[in-house]
C-alpha cells in the first residue's frame, strides 16, 4: 500500500468547495469519503480537521448548513454551497491552476537548457 499523503493546509477548503459544487449538498462524512474517493484513495483525510474547516467556510459565508436525513435515514448536517461559495470555488480553482502551471514550468525537463 502506498503511503497516503496528508491534506496540506489551505487545499482542504478548495476540495470541499469543489466537491460540493460537483455533488450538491452533502453531509460531513459523505464529503470526507468523497474527497478520499476523488483523490483515488491517495489522500488520507483526518476527519477531525474537516469540521473546523467547514465551520470556517460557514463563517465566511461560502456554505450554509442544515440538518436533514441521510440516504439511509440517519440524521445528519448537510452542507450546501452558497452563491458566494460558488464564486469562491471558481476563483480558488483559477488561482490554483495558475499556481500549479507556474510550478509546472520549473518541473519541465527543457527548463534546464
Amino acid at each position, binding site marked *: 500500500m502506498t503511503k497516503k499523503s496528508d491534506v496540506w493546509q489551505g487545499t482542504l477548503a478548495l476540495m470541499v468547495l469543489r466537491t460540493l459544487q460537483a455533488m450538491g449538498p452533502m*453531509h*460531513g*462524512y*459523505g464529503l470526507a*469519503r468523497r474527497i478520499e474517493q476523488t483523490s483515488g484513495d491517495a489522500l488520507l483525510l*483526518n*476527519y*477531525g*480537521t474537516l*469540521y*473546523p474547516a467547514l*465551520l*470556517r467556510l460557514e*463563517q*465566511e*459565508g461560502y456554505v450554509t448548513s442544515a440538518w436533514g436525513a*441521510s440516504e*439511509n435515514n*440517519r*440524521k*445528519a*448536517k448537510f452542507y450546501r454551497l452558497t452563491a458566494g461559495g460558488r464564486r469562491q470555488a471558481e476563483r480558488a480553482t483559477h488561482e490554483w491552476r495558475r499556481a500549479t502551471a507556474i510550478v509546472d514550468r520549473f518541473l519541465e525537463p527543457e527548463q534546464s537548457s
Partner: protein
Amino acid sequence: MKTLRAWLVRLSGTFHRTRAERDLADELDAHLQLHIDDGIRAGLTPAEARRAARLALGSVDSIREAYRERARVPWLTAIGRDLWFASRVFRRQPGFAIGAVLTLALGVGVNTAVFGVVDAVVLRPLPYPSPERIVEIAGPGQGLVRFGRVLEVWPQALRAESTFGAIGLYVPGGANLGGEEAVRVAAAAVSPGFFDALAARPALGRTFTEADLAVSGSVVVLSNRIWRERFRADPAAVGQQVRIDGLTFDVIGVMPPGVSYPDGTALWLPTNGGTGVMGQIPVAKIVARLRDGVPLTAVRDRVVAAAGLRGHRATSLRVLPLRDALVGPVVPIAALVWIGAAVVLFMACVNVANLLLARVSRRHREFAVRRALGATRGQLVRQGIVESAILSFLGALLALPAAWWTIATARVVLPATLHGVPEIAFDVRFVAAMAVFSMLVAVLAGAGPSLAIARTKSALPTAAPVAGDRGWARFRGALIVGQIAASLVLLAAAAALVQSMRDLMQINIGARAERALAIEMNLPRARYESPAMAADFVARLDRALREIPGVEEVGVANQLPGRAPELLLAHPVAVQGHAGPGAPADGLLLNASPGFFAAAGIDLLAGRAFSDQDRTGSAPAAIVTEGFARLLGARPQDLIGRRLGESTRENAAPETIVGVVADVRLRGPEGRFETAVYVPYAVSPARVGATFVVVRAERDPLALAPAIRAAVARLDPDLPLYNMRTFDQIRSALVTERRLAMLAIVIFAILAVVLAAIGVYSVVSYAVELRTREIGIRLAIGATRWVMCREIVGSGLRQAIAGVSAGSAVALWMSTVASSTVHELARVSPALVVVVASGTVAVAVGATLVPALRAARVDPARTLQAE
C-alpha cells in the same frame, strides 16, 4: 469583508457557545453513525465498525478544541473570565473597591475637567488660517499724544511696504444691542482690513469693504453666537436689521463659530459706526497678517520706521503673535493649575497602587496556588491588569458627570472676554482626554502590582504571607515620601496664592467705596445728540437717584478706578506760573460730577469739589490730582486758584484749578496711580464710551439696585444699565482667572493632603498588619506598648520628614523660578514653608496614630496561639 464577517460570527459565538457545541456533538455523532453503517455494510461486526470509525475520526476532544478555537475569539473569552473573576474579588471586598474607584475618579475627574478648560483656553489652535502669521501691534502705550493721528497714517504707511499681507485697526468696546430690553454686548469697531488680517471668512454674507466706510450707512457683522441667539440661526438673517445704540443697522455678515476676537466680541461695526463702541478714548489696536517669509523679529523695526516713531514711543511698541497676545497671559496660570491637577492624579494613582500592592501581598497565597495549579505567569499578570483596568474604568464613569459639571461651571464663571471660554465644551476631545487619563491611571496604578504578581513563585508558600519582600516595602515607602513632598509643594503654592490674592485685595486704589455701587451705561448719540442733552440727562438722573431712600451720595464720571481700558491717553497740561522741569505735566483728561469724589471715596486734599454752579457759561473750573501737582513740583494748596495754560476744550477760556484730589489706580490694584485733570461732567459729558454712576448707600448698596433701575427706567426706558457692581466686585472681576486658579489650587492642595494622609495611613497600617506576629512576640517578651506605638509613629515620622524636606526644597526652588519668569505669581517665603511643612508633618503623624494604637493593642497571647 469575509474576514470581518467571520469575526462577527466568532464574536457572537463567544457569547452563545452552548448551542454551537451541542450542534457539533450531534454532528460528530452522526458522522460516527454513518461511518459505522458503512463498516457494517462492508461486513464488519458492529463492534469492529465502531472501533474503526472512532479511530478514523480521531480524538473528539481535540476536534472540539479546534472547533472551539475557530468558533470563538479565545483571548476574549479569557478576558471575560478575568472580568468575572475580578468582579467577584471586588464584591468580596467592596470597601477596597469603592475606595479605589473613588480615588481614581478623583484623579481622572480633576484632570479631565482641567483639560477641558485648558484645551479651550490655551491648547486649541486659533480658528484662523496660518495663525502664526497674525500679529497684534499695540500702540506705543500711554503718554503718546496725538496717537490717533499716527494711527491714521500707519495703515497706509505699513501697507506700502511688503511686511504685511493685510492690516486692520480695531477699537474694542461695547454696544447696546436691541430695541426694547437692549442688552450690553462686547463689540468692536474695525477697519475693513481687520477680517483680512485674521483671514476670517464669514459663514454667511460678507465683511466690510472700503465702500462701507465711505458712506455713512450702518452695517454690522454678527458673531455666530449672537446670530444663534437673536436670529435662531436663521440663514436669512443677512439683510435683516438690528438696533444698536438706538440706531438701525443692516446685518451684512455672520462669522463662523469660534471667531470672537477681540475679547469675546459679539458685533463688529465699521470704524465709522457712529456709536459708542469706540471705547473711552479711541485708542486703536492693530492686527496684521505678515507676508510669507517676513520674520517676526523684523516687524517691530519696520513699524517703528514706517510710523517715524522715536524714543519711548518706539521702545514701548509691542508686536506680539496673536496667539501669544490672546493666550500668553493665562499660560502660567493654566500651567500651575494643570501641575496641581497632575499632582492629584499622581497621588490618586499612588494610593491605589499601594492598596493593590498590599493586596498582592495578602493574596500571595492565592496567586501561588493558582501558579501551582497551572496558571501561567502571564495569566496572573493579565488578571492584575484587568483588575486595575476595571477600577479605572469605573472611576472614569463616576468622574464623567463631575467633570462635565465642572467645565459647565467654568464656562459660566470664567470671564467671557477670556479667549476660548465660549468654546469650552463637552466634546470629542474631552471624552478622548478622559479615556487617555483613565488608561494612564490604569497603567500607573496597575504597573507595580502587576510586576509584583509576576514575581510570584509557583511554590506553595508558608501559611503566613512573607513579610520580607523588602523591595516592595521600600518602593511603597518611596511613593509615600513622594506623596508628602508633592502635597507640600501644592500646599505651599496654595498658601502663597491666597496670601498674594489677599494682598491684592487690600492695595489702596485711592478710592474707598465700601458702600458704593457702580453702574455703567452708554448714552447713545442717536438719542442724546448734543453734549447739553447728555449733561441734562445726567443732571436729572443725579437728582432722581438722590431721592431714593437710603442713598447717601451720587456721583457721575467717565472713568472709574478698576474699569479703565488697557491704554489710556494722557495729555500734557500746563499750569500758569509753573514752568519748572515737570511742566507741562502729563494728565488724563477726565470728568466728574459734583458728588463723584464723595461717592467714590476719593479724598479731597485742597480746595473744593465741583458744585452745581460749575456748568457751561459759568467760570470754568478744573480739579487736578495730587500726583499732577507733584509732577509740577507744587504742593496741592499752591495750585488752588491757578489757571491751566490752555483750556482742555477747544475755543474756551482756560480753567481755574478749584481743588486737588487724590490719585486713583484707574486700572485696578495692579495698575499705577494715574495723574489726571478733572473737569465738570456738566461741561464736558462723556460722548463716547461708558458713563459711570456711583451711588453711595447708607447700608447695603446692592439692596438699592431695583430702585436705581426703576429710577433710570422712568427717565429713559430704553437705556440699558450694565455691570451694576460694588467696588469690591469690580476689583475681584479684574482677577477672576487668578482667583479661580487660586481656588482650584487650594482645592487640589487639600485633596493632595487628604490623599497623602490616606496613603500614609494605608502603608503604615499594612506594615502593622504584617508585623502583628513580631509585635506580639516582642510584647510577650517584655516590650512595652508605648515602645511599639512610638516605633510605628517613628516610621511614619521619618517618611514625613523626608517628604517634607524634599517638598520644601522643591517649593522654594519653584517659587524662585516662577517669580523670575512670571512676576505676578506669588512668592513662597521660607516662613510660609516652615508653617506648611509643620502642618504636613502633623497630618502625616496623625495618619500613623490609628495603626500605631492598633499595634499597641495587639494581644500577645492570641498572636502566639495563632502560630
